[in-house]
């Protein structure tokens, strides 16, 4: 199928760009940040580890940059991201393996929820233009969309965890939550995730609302909608089969860009709530000058976002007959 094939090519190409940026950035920046990092850890790491890092960053003049580049790409293909420095000697892939489920759970669920809620409100706001509530939703959404995620997270944390003590101050689980997947464990997980989920929902819902509202308004002036009205179709049918079906498609298309933004915001939210996902470890890596972990996390975050995008593209194929035949 040419459409999906093209999307797949873009996905692979983007991943390759992410990997290449990872490789180029430390070498591009003046002042040799990697040497600074290595100097910082000189006394605390054993010499063989420092040597390994030197090789990884091309500081020991082993081979040309081109040769280094291909060695690096080969390592990534094998899933070998080296070892974390701040958590030495844990392999970076182990850190990611631990953190990924939390982020996927938190960001995945909130993104789907936020998309559904925001789009539903957007449909309402676009379809009932002129109604005071529907019109008020737009400026509210603009404001919510302009709030820094982490700032709202801090306020939530202060209100509901610090002052009111309704929720824990941070982390994903109690220190001793009981055996994994037991009822106690689940309730602990749920209590810890409430505030982060709420934060991400509130701060990301506005974007989906605005997107969907614009799409609905655009569809409203399409000829096929006037025709549906002229046919005397019931309002419900017009809304579900004519407005919604068509307004959803561009929403899916802009999903990719918005998703990157939401993931960025969620990373900051994780930091505020000390939620042990990818964002939290990214922060740890930045603070600890842990470049291998940082780069691997960036690569994995990019991979996750791209995979989600691809899933949305698949959904698009199912929903739009024009794409199915490679016409769009």
């Amino acid at each position, binding site marked *: 199928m040419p459409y999906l094939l093209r999307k797949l090519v*873009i996905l692979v*190409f*983007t991943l390759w*760009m992410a990997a290449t940026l990872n490789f180029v950035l430390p070498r591009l*920046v003046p002042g040799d*940040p990697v040497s600074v990092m290595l100097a910082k850890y000189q006394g605390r790491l054993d010499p063989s580890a420092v040597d390994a890092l030197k090789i990884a960053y091309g500081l020991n003049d082993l081979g040309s940059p081109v040769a280094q580049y291909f060695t690096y790409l080969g390592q990534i293909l094998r899933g070998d991201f080296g070892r974390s420095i701040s958590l030495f000697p844990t392999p970076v892939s182990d850190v990611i393996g631990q953190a990924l489920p939390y982020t996927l759970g938190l960001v995945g669920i909130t993104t789907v929820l936020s998309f559904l809620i925001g789009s539903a409100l957007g449909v309402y706001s676009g379809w009932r*233009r002129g109604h005071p509530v529907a*019109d008020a939703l*737009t*400026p509210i959404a*603009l*404001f919510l*969309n*302009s*709030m*820094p*995620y*982490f*700032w*709202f997270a*801090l*306020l939530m944390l202060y209100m509901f965890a*610090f002052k009111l003590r309704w929720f824990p101050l941070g982390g994903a689980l109690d220190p001793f939550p009981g055996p994994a997947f037991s009822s106690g464990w689940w309730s602990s997980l749920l209590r810890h995730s409430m505030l982060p989920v709420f934060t991400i929902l509130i701060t990301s819902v506005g974007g989906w609302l605005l997107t969907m509202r614009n799409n609905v308004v655009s569809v*409203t*002036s*399409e*000829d*096929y909608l*006037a*025709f549906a*009205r*002229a*046919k*005397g*179709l*019931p309002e419900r049918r017009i809304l579900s*089969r*004519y407005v919604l079906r*068509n307004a959803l*498609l561009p929403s899916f298309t802009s999903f990719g*860009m918005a*998703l*990157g*933004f939401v*993931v960025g*915001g969620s*990373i*900051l939210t994780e930091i*505020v709530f000390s939620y042990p996902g990818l964002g939290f470890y*990214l922060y740890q890596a*930045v*603070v600890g000058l842990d470049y291998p972990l940082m780069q691997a996390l*960036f690569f994995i975050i*990019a991979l996750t976002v791209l995979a989600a*995008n691809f899933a949305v593209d698949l959904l698009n194929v199912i929903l*739009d*007959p*024009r794409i199915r*035949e490679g*016409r769009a």
Partner: protein
Amino acid sequence: MNGLRILLRQPRSLVGAGILLVLLLMGLLAPVLTPYNPTSLEFSAYMPFSAQHPLGTTAIGQDIFSQLLYGARLTLLVGAVAGLIATLLSVALGLTAAYVGGWVDEAINALINVFLVLPGLPLVIIAAAFLRGGGVWPVILVISLTGWAWGARVLRAQAMALRERDFVQAAVASGEGPGRIIFMEILPNMTSLIAANFFGAALYAVLSEAGLSFIGVGDVSLVTWGTMLYWAQAKGALLQGAWWWVAMPGLGIALLGTSFALLNFAIDQLGNPRLGWGSVKSFRRTLPPAPAPNPNALLAVRDLDVGYVTPQGTVRAVRKVSLDVAPGEFVGLAGESGCGKSTLAFAATRLLNPPGEVLGGSVTLAGQDLLALAPEALRQVRWKEFSVVFQASMNVLNPVLKIREQVYDAMQAHGITDPAKLDARARELFSMVGIQTRYLDSYPHQLSGGMKQRVVIAIALALEPKLIVMDEPTTALDVVVQRQILQEIAEVRRRLKISIVFITHDLSLLVEMSDRVAIMYAGELVEQAPAHELYAHPAHPYTQQLMKAFPPMTGPRERRSGIPGRPPSLSETLPGCPFFERCAVRMPGICDVKPLETFRIAEAHTVACFLYDPAVSPATKELALSHAPNSVIAQPLVSQEVRLEPVPNPALH
């Protein structure tokens, strides 16, 4: 600038500009508003609110209020500069891609797609982590380099559309250089899009800077709202209960972001008015009672006034138009583009969208006042009593639903639900308009334009309505398909005894097909007559001119002339006849001052022209006629003996 004035009249963009102005003044007037240096540590830690320190002090004894004021400076700077650089990048790359095309376009487009899906903030964090320290410029640079892709995509699409437009093509053909074309022809038409894009990029920049500063990447020794949040968090402000230290800078960022977003939204709307905040008003009957309709008419339009309500004033597109359609009659409605004929059709069928609005008059269909019907009653009348075939039938079918569903739902909405019946009727309709029934299970994009138009006509016939309004149903089709479809329409009408209102600018077509023809000009119905009568004796000077615009098949060769001049602007209030300016037989002092009236000159022939006004002296009329160049009116308006046989229409034979 006109756009700017419209922008400043909207409450939302005013609020956005107002917030931005206040924040800007906060930064600029910081030395006036506070005596303290934002970074001096001269006070004790965590002082509460006081007259001296309106927002207290930080953990290390800095005045929070002065930090908030001075922080506005750098925060705004980052937003403005990063927004500007990102926008410049978007413009440069988007325009280059669109203008150069070919592999350059492919490459830039690939780059745009990559940067669109790469998660921005993590990338910025990584990049900034390597660029640690060094003031505000590395941060600005990194943010701009990651924030340009969305704008480039939008601008590229817009520039590509512009490049195909006539005026740009003309500039290319006349040998203008690429620089001139880009800067003189393309860029000026993209200003609002670029401005909207700038505010979008600035919003992204402010939020990214805040996020970066918050996690300590970038230069935390500077005072921005982002670094204030960083220090508040690092010093545990919330644990000390100093929530305002966190709340205030964040609120500043949120407000700045909102003002950027409001401006972005408002400017975007200038270029794309459909996205307006404007409300959809439902029609409410507050009109003065109109004269009683003709009881024999199937459709009776009385004194219908329709306008488009715009910020610049009301455009009166249809002015006091009255029109009757008898059962089984084929009425043609003709006039040049923009004369209000489609608006009339949309208003009469209550399909007019805002800003269009019915301002007065009545529309009665089979005894029911259509304009007064409640929504549910209107829904039931629609399609059952009258159906509509649209002008742009290319886009009339829902692209994501199968044809079958779109044929069915019209019938289902009016009580036919038995699947066997639905299927049988759909097949019958399709064979009636000459399409193979297998296309029922296609999607609209799989059909050609002519087939789509046939499908729409089939759907219009589904419930055998008494009336079908057809708005230029064949305009977009090639002549052969057009002829076939017209023949089918004529045949079906005869068989089912359906009334048809047929709208077109093609007068020759109407004369051939219609029982009666009505001519519109500048929102007025200027002449109405049986088709043969109108053909033989066009009475209104405008109709006569229209008749001269198409050649007869027989007779001597003669020069075809257009009508010099242009119709008047419909936003004006015209005291007299709207055709006055272009009329060759006008009577100054009468036509341009008397309110337009309609006169009956034969049994079924009315004309809105003062040449037929018995109150105007014959001498005045003679004078006007004698001034006319002989090409205008060959026969004096009074002689009605000469009868011409209708000339066959080349489109139909």
